[in-house]
């Protein structure tokens, strides 16, 4: 368990599940600090101060956008939204630059290996990852282009 899994990722997922903070109605988020700390209704297991810190970290990482104002007892967030980077981190948006690279291919095959039920299939896919590393990015992308070209369309490689 970590700050990310216990606090920041649940907060990011909570924000994803909200509608726009501007339309059809504008909403702000007010979180109690210090003497006004209370359990955060939005994310189970967090209090309002922990949630404010989670939002601050997410903002610093560029995963959310919004404006924070602080008074004696409260932090007020307005204009909250998840950024494109945040959507990529949550697996909601692809990172096309990364995915059409040799590293992306290796990550994809690794991901598929994780979900393969048969250990021999897992091993075969992991060996394929190893071979991509051994032949190098140029050869791997050429092989991918040849494979795709044979099937009617060039992909990746630039």
């Amino acid at each position, binding site marked *: 368990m*970590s700050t990310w899994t216990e606090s920041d990722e649940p907060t990011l997922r909570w924000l994803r*599940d*909200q*509608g*726009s*903070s*501007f*339309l*059809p109605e504008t909403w702000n988020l007010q979180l109690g600090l210090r003497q006004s700390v209370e359990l955060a209704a939005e994310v189970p297991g967090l209090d309002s101060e922990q949630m404010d810190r989670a939002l601050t970290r997410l903002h610093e*990482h560029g*995963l959310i956008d919004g404006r924070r104002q602080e008074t004696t007892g409260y932090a007020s967030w307005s204009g909250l*939204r*998840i*950024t*494109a*980077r945040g*959507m*990529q*981190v*949550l*697996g*909601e*948006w*692809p*990172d*096309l630059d*990364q*995915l*059409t690279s040799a*590293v*992306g291919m290796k*990550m*994809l095959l*690794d*991901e*598929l290996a994780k*979900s*393969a039920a*048969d250990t*021999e*299939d897992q*091993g*075969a*896919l992991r*060996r*394929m990852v190893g*071979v991509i590393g*051994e*032949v190098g990015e140029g050869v*791997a992308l050429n*092989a*991918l282009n*040849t*494979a*795709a070209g*044979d*099937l009617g*369309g060039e*992909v*990746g490689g630039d």
Partner: protein
Amino acid sequence: MKSVATNTATHWEAAALPVLQQLVEKEGALRERGLLQLGLGQEGAKWLGLDIDDGELFDTLHQLQDLGYVSFNLTLESGPGALFLDLHLTGRGLQVLGEWPRFEAWSSPATLAAFAEQLAQFVSPDDRTRLERAAQYLRSQASGAIKRAAIAAGSQMARNALGLP
């Protein structure tokens, strides 16, 4: 606040990609109109031919702007409402629209299986057998499952870049 409807498609496929596609489709009409209006009674998303509400379009346009795929000047109004002026796809946005079909082809079971067979030319006979097994496995997968795995892999790369688990 309201809950956003969720389904099995990623937000990219359900909202972002259709927004990019409709901005191309409606490019002329948008230029003629001069702006896109979102908010009560405006139904800007519907005008663009999208099956999402104006709030989701508002956020999605900002996310597309985060990556430099679209450009606009924004005026916010009480009401609330939003005027997107000079809204258009950038060169990068057009490139992404071109890349997406390439990505779909790249992540198809047939392409990945053929890729494994191509790689088999470079390895020892023992490894060749394993790559042929990999090809067989990849060919048996549904394209949707591979696409989801590809997006999950992208998510992991984004997390790695930020030092997140």
